[in-house]
């Protein structure tokens, strides 16, 4: 099902060319005046005189071979432009994912296992965290940690690995904020739910030590819904990273996508959209595989969502 989604998504992205008001030429040029002769070049390159589906096939074929067209504003290969920026986005998403997994799941498990003061405060913190969108978190973090405290730089990528990590910390936290709250809450709820299960009672009635009960039954079973929600939220990071990149002036795919959308550089928009949608689908696929591994009742290919 997911590969089919990807195919249809690529079709939609391609068809955007024709959904735009005006002719495809106008869309490709973004409404800019074109020098004479360019029209023929564009028609040839994009096979505009051939049937619709054939055009789609050419575009897809090119895309699969790494050729995503030319940026009308920067006059460079879209693929080159993507390649130079993809590690920024990937690094940002990875950094945020680590924060979500370690802090979110960690907090969720601890507060799920121990009702009490820690739990109530965790509930409040995660409720607030889940409500702070990335760009709001961005300005708060910049205000507190970059301007007031000066611990982290406010903008830019930085150069060199250590500098990159410093520059990416605030953006990664901003990106992780909402997901952190959601994952922590779902983790806590799952751990609670598992703790009430009858097979946990069976384990206790046999005298299993508390730690074994928690590890072998509670956390092990809660891992299934926890993996699902973590995977889904990490997949959503792929799109939200654009907002964070803009807020922190990071040189990634997302900020470039937004620029291209503003300047109507359609080839770039299509190229980056295709890359991001593919990444999104791949992450979802990985989540499905992981869940099938964790739950022997599920066979891959069955609709278990």
């Amino acid at each position, binding site marked *: *099902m*997911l590969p*089919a*989604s*990807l195919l*249809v*998504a690529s079709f*939609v*992205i391609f068809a*955007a060319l024709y*959904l*735009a*008001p005006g002719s495809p030429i106008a*869309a490709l040029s973004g409404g800019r005046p074109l020098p004479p002769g360019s029209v023929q070049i564009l028609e040839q390159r994009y096979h505009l005189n051939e049937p619709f589906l054939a055009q789609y096939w050419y575009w897809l074929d090119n895309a699969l071979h790494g050729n995503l067209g030319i940026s009308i504003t920067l006059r460079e290969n879209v693929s080159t432009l993507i390649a130079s920026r993809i590690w920024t986005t990937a690094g940002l998403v990875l950094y945020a994912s680590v924060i979500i997994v370690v802090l979110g799941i960690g907090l969720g498990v601890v507060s799920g296992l121990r009702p009490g003061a820690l739990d109530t405060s965790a509930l409040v913190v995660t*409720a*607030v965290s*889940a*409500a*702070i*969108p*990335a*760009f*709001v978190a961005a*300005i*708060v973090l*910049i*205000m507190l940690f*970059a*301007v007031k405290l000066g611990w982290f730089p*406010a*903008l830019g990528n930085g150069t060199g690995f250590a500098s990159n990590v410093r520059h990416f910390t605030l953006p990664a936290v901003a990106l992780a904020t*909402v997901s952190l709250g959601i994952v922590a809450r779902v983790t806590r709820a799952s751990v609670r739910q598992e703790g009430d299960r009858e097979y946990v009672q069976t384990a206790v009635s046999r005298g299993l030590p508390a730690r074994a009960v928690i590890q072998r039954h509670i956390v092990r079973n809660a891992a299934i819904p926890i993996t699902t929600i973590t995977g889904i939220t990490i*997949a*959503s990071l*792929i*799109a*939200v990273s*654009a*907002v964070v990149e*803009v*807020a922190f002036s990071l040189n990634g795919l997302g900020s470039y*996508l*937004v620029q*291209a*959308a*503003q300047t*109507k550089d*359609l080839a770039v*928009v299509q190229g980056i*959209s295709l890359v*991001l*949608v593919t990444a*999104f*689908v791949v992450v*979802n696929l990985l989540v499905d595989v992981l869940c099938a591994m964790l739950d022997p009742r599920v066979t891959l290919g069955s*609709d278990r*969502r």
Partner: protein
Amino acid sequence: MSAVSTAGAAARPWSRGLASLRATGPAGVASAVVIAAAMFAAAFGPLLAPYNPDLPNLSLAWAGPTGGHLLGYDVEGRDVLSRLLAGAQTAMLGPLAVVILSVTAGTLLAVTAAWRRGASDAVISSGLDIVFAFPGILLAVLAAAVFGAGLPAAAIALSIAYLPYIARVLRGAALRERSQPYVAALEVQGAPAASICLRHVIPNIGPLIAAQATILFGSAMIDLAAISFLGLGVQPPAANWGVMISENQVGIVQGYPLPALAAGICIVTVVIAVNVLGERLFDQARAARR
């Protein structure tokens, strides 16, 4: 039906709604009050604003709070409080439109799929699964690139992106309703399918629809504000909380965080209220189902 009973039937949804609101506890009621206040500001914001939210006066840019200007001035010398009130309009009505669109379409698709089952269900479910591949923000950016930046395009794009999620949740509930004995009884009596769906199935999954709609409002608010922040939704200089954050972001590094922060706090407050209320409504709907 006599006039008395139809009046009774109309009164019941309201009193039931209020009763279930009261049942969400103090946190739920407080959240509802916050949301109502925001809706009020959205409806009457421009009238309530003490000063003109759109008139720039660069000589006053970034000036701090003074008497009469509780929150100071923004990057272009406009009164922040007035701008917040005016901005409530698009900040609240945009998500409302998204929710109305996606919940209506989602309910229709879900009930149709659940009612007809078989091939129709398979087609609708697969179709929804395919749309699932598009994160909301991405679709909105694509729409902005194709149709030009603006709130309507973004709102429609988000509605489409949310459709699979809400339709899937409601389809499950509709399937459960469909297999209840009273539905079979009505069918046997010869009631037409549309009538059963409209007068029985949908009202019975009503609490779940309300809960999901509330939760969806929060997501739509965040996504639309983000898109406006990116400059692809509501366009500056129009007042909008997301736009305000984008406009006033430069002030933060320069030492004037208040305008951007104020807009951010407005967004977060409404989203928290919506999440709290939505969660409680959801718990209620689930408990009622058992």
